């Protein structure tokens, strides 16, 4: 029996009030892609941070190639041969690629030599990248390449990847997997964190499943179905969102030739976006982050103004109107960023409920706030959407991501919108909460509303949407029915090859 590359033995870490890891043990062998599975809050991040030296476990030990290993800081972990690609990229927008790479190294060579090394590595591993480009101008896939190359330049034995595919197109995922398999063939190990089960089944050799900080299962993911893995992760039977077929109704939301300049220097301007959404229809809009999603949501919600006819609700032009007028007409929105955009972090749930619900729910009476009604509305959202919180007086910041997401989506749904637009409704939300949110969106469409779901999670869109369109560099492809759409076609749409696909069909 050979010694494993990294042996983790009984790691425990508690934070005030939470046990993040409890007696976690597993081994990572050489040349192995090892999956770490678990819902949000299962303790994956804490465990990985302990391996990378960002967190000190309270008890337990690790052995690296048979020798005791207890990194006190990331540079000690890097010196041992551990490298990490972060979920939220640890990159600096205003610096160029080479400078970003240099910041992740302990003894970087002069920038000119480093740039040459970056070119070599990016060619060897099929990850094209220009060292002189500003990171702020790169796509999510390219940003991830910067992180990976930064790691590879240090010749790591273990590469930790935290949810690497959540922002990539299917084609980019393919490139990434080819690189990861090449690394495995070189005898390097990879610790792969994800909750995308199909990927894990296709890529990983072993899997360790965490739930509430404890190891609840080990398996060979290639021998399991995605459903079995999901149930190991959640610990109960999964409820699949479902909805009967239906006929589309009248057009509720129409966008006509909407062109809009992005207010942000790193944003994407919208170009001639046109689409119509019918009553009872869920339109899924896919696309890699930064292709105009935020701008589209802002244009629909009224945060960005457009020519009057560019956006209309039930035939009424609202393009030039602000959010409150649109809300009165039944067009409600839930933006992506939960803290700071969808909800004010330091305000209570009651106050947050009031912020968008004031008009439709009549929470304001002749200029005065009706606190009783506002609290009642917040409580209704909490009850109906199973938001885990002590009560409506709690500030939004104190809620976990999934619970706050249920609250901000629920707040809009309970106002009975005619048209609901959501951006990344289940981003960073655990499987059970995500299923609940998806079901609520489908129920809403069932009740005759038009729903627009902007998301980077293709599985989600293909699961709940009736029709699909893709955003690419601010342009929206023509929508197509989801039924009969293949993953290849979706990939081409995401790449902006709408017309080419039509010509071939």
């Amino acid at each position: 029996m050979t010694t494993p590359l990294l042996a983790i033995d009984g790691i425990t870490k508690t934070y005030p009030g939470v046990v993040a890891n409890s007696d976690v043990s597993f081994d990572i062998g050489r040349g192995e892609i090892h999956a770490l599975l678990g819902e949000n809050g299962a303790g994956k991040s804490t465990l990985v941070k302990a391996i990378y030296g960002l967190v000190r476990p309270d008890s337990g030990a690790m052995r690296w190639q048979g020798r005791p290993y207890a990194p006190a800081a990331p540079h000690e972990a890097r010196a041992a041969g551990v490298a990490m690609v972060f979920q939220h990229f640890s990159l600096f927008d205003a610096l160029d690629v080479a400078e970003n790479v240099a910041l992740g190294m302990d003894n970087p060579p002069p920038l000119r030599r480093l740039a040459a090394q970056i070119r070599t590595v990016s060619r060897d591993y099929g990850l094209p990248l220009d060292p002189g480009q500003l990171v702020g101008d790169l796509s999510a896939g390219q940003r991830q390449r910067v992180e990976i190359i930064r790691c590879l330049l240090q010749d790591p034995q273990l590469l930790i990847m935290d949810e690497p595919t959540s922002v990539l197109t299917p084609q980019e995922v393919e490139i990434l997997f080819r690189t990861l398999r090449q690394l495995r063939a070189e005898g390097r190990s990879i610790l792969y964190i994800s909750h995308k089960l199909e990927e894990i089944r296709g890529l990983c050799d072993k899997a360790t499943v965490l739930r509430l900080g404890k190891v609840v299962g080990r398996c060979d993911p290639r021998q399991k179905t995605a459903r079995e893995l999901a149930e190991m992760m959640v610990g109960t039977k999964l409820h699949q969102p479902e909805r009967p077929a239906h006929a589309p109704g009248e057009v509720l939301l129409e966008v006509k030739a909407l062109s809009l300049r992005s207010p942000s220097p790193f944003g994407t301007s919208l170009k001639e976006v046109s689409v119509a959404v019918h009553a009872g229809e869920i339109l899924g809009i896919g696309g890699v982050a930064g292709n105009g999603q935020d701008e589209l949501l802002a244009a629909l919600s009224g945060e960005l103004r457009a020519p009057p006819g560019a956006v209309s609700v039930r035939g009424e032009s609202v393009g030039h109107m602000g959010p409150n007028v649109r809300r009165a007409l039944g067009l409600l929105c839930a933006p992506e960023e939960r803290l700071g955009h969808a909800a004010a972090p330091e305000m209570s749930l009651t106050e947050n409920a009031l912020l968008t619900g004031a008009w439709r729910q009549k929470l304001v009476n002749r200029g005065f706030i009706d606190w009783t009604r506002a609290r009642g509305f917040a409580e209704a959202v909490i009850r109906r959407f199973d938001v885990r919180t002590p009560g409506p007086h709690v500030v939004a910041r104190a809620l976990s991501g999934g619970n706050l997401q249920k609250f901000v989506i629920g707040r809009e749904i309970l106002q009975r919108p005619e048209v609901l637009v959501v951006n990344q409704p289940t981003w960073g939300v655990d499987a059970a909460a995500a299923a609940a949110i998806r079901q609520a969106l489908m129920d809403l469409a069932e009740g005759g509303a038009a729903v627009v779901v902007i998301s980077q999670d293709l599985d989600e869109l293909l699961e709940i949407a009736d029709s699909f369109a893709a955003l690419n560099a601010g342009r929206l492809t023509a929508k197509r029915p989801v039924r009969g759409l293949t993953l290849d076609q979706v990939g081409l749409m995401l790449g902006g090859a709408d017309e080419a696909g039509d010509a071939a069909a």
Partner: protein
Amino acid sequence: MIDLSSINPVVLAAALMVAATPILLAAIGELVVEKAGVLNLGVEGMMITGAVTGFAVAVMTRDPYLGLLAAAFGGAAISLLFALLTQVMMANQVASGLALTLFGLGFSALLGQGFVGVSPPRTAKLDFGFLSDLPILGPILFRHDPMVYVSLALVAGVWYFLNYTRGGRILRAVGENHEAAHALGYRVRRVRILAIAFGGACAGLGGAYLSLIRVPQWTEGMTAGAGWIALALVVFSSWRPWRVVLGAYLFGGIIVLQLNLQAAGFRIPVEYLAMSPYLVTILVLVIMSSGRARKTLAAPGSLGRPFHATG
């Protein structure tokens, strides 16, 4: 009658460099602080603290250079108060900076009570031989006190540090995205405290330049808004060291011109000229926040945001 002929452009240009030096020193320090992601509005307070400590030490030791050194230490010391509040105790940066200014103004008045009306030791002007004897260029460029050249060398040093050294890269990284810098294992708090201390030292030097060389005398509140101009200058320069020089000499020019026009009996109220640095800064801010120019003129990403290290 306006007598513009009484304004000598050579003297004006020479005076401009002297007038610009205090704000240049303070602004280059604040630039480093802001590049590290910290907004320290206490520049005025640190300047006046430097002005009084520098003045007191110079008078007591009869050595202006010891005075300047003490001013740098004084400015750095009081800036560490700000660092303690904002980096260790996580207080709000804007409020702490304003408090630092008010505290510095009061504290310096207390320290300077025995020094009103005293004259400090003189600081000699440098003589560059034939360079100083050049017509026009000589008096404008080569007949100043050493601090004028030190301030320019400091700008060059900061420019080189920020763009060409690893330390500078780390400092910019901390200011751009402190969470990412922390994740990579950099000590965000330590970098920021060092930057704050450097900013304090520069502001202190700027203040002492006023009290020891430019005026030279100690009066209460003698910085008279120079710290605010320095703050505006950092924004005006869009966080680029050489543009700070440009801005400082522009604003220095306005200050000198205003004095000369007053002497020449010009009819426009001088308040208009006194307002102009701020107006120009507001104008620059408007230009910066419109259109595509923003990408290249953007402020450090984490500027003014407090950093909480989480597990």
